[in-house]
């Protein structure tokens, strides 16, 4: 159930940045979540919706973008997308899709990134 603490950290990050940028409204938030994180996007979205009540984030569009798994093969030097069946983490991290080697490193798919926000602010508020 660590979606709750992750959602909480995300909401705090967004509110902090919005405040520093003198936002009067937050229109949209984009969050990137790697497919190998143990986070369920549906649960994450639900919890964010609960946590934003009575904050500047209430009513904003929250986009959760899932990022694919990438790996690097230590034998054939393949670097790129893993063979990923949505229901199976196992295959994706075990074998190089090119040569079948098992000695592979995971290079992407574990992100949990608050990417950007779209805000409304008073004209002329930005730092000179």
């Amino acid at each position, binding site marked *: *159930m*660590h979606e*709750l*603490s*992750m959602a909480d*950290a*995300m909401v705090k*990050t*967004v509110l902090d*940045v*919005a405040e520093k*940028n003198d936002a*009067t409204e937050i*229109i949209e938030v984009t969050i990137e979540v790697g497919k*190998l*994180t*143990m986070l369920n996007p549906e649960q994450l979205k639900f919890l964010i919706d609960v946590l934003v009540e009575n904050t500047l984030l209430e009513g904003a569009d929250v986009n959760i973008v899932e990022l694919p798994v990438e790996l690097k093969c230590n034998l054939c030097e393949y670097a790129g997308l893993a063979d990923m069946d949505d229901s199976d*983490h*196992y295959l994706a*991290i*075990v074998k190089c899709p090119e040569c079948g080697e*098992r*000695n592979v490193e*995971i290079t992407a798919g*574990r*992100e*949990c*990134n*608050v*990417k*950007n*926000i*779209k*805000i*409304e*602010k*008073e*004209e*002329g508020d*930005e730092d000179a």
Partner: protein
Amino acid sequence: MHKIAEVEIQHDIMVANRKLADRNQKILDDAGVFSVDVLGAIGSGKTSLIEILIQKMDHKIGVIAGDVISKFDAGRFEKYNIPVVGLNTGKECHLDAHLVEHAFGDMPLELIDLLFIENVGNLICPVDFDLGSHVRMVVISVSEGDDTVEKHPLIFKEADLVVINKIDIAEAVGADQDKMVLDVKELNPNIKVIKSSLKTGQGLDEIINIIEGFINK
């Protein structure tokens, strides 16, 4: 007049945790303390193994006992008159680097040279959260079923040592212990996997030798 602005944030919570973990490792290195994360399933024998290592290893050992309610495990370690810090996670299912940094405040690092950090019993959530330890030891047991490794690949991919415990009851619970070893090797070809029974003592010397090897590396 209002205007719309896009603000790049690029704040990755995993990266932030990793930075804290790196800082924790520096604190440990400066104090001359080697640290082992102990992760694994509920009831697999994590606490029992650490209790045995406290008695058998020739080191000044400290333990950070993380759990949803940590007083039970912490109480078991305190019997050995070593420094113990209980770390309650409350509703949280894993430790993170920030919590561990707080625990360092109560742990007399100058009095120890080997620190075990016992994580919450869970094969899923702790995987993503480096704590700053030097190595990760994962403890599972045959009673969780011989498909445990396949079902939780990431934790084994990231481990440095895997202990498969309670092999004395493998037959009784119908678990294929060798399959479990092969499944770990499939995920992590170079890893050390030890079959153990804390009850009979099987595998303990190997576990100790491997940990000593990590320390002396």
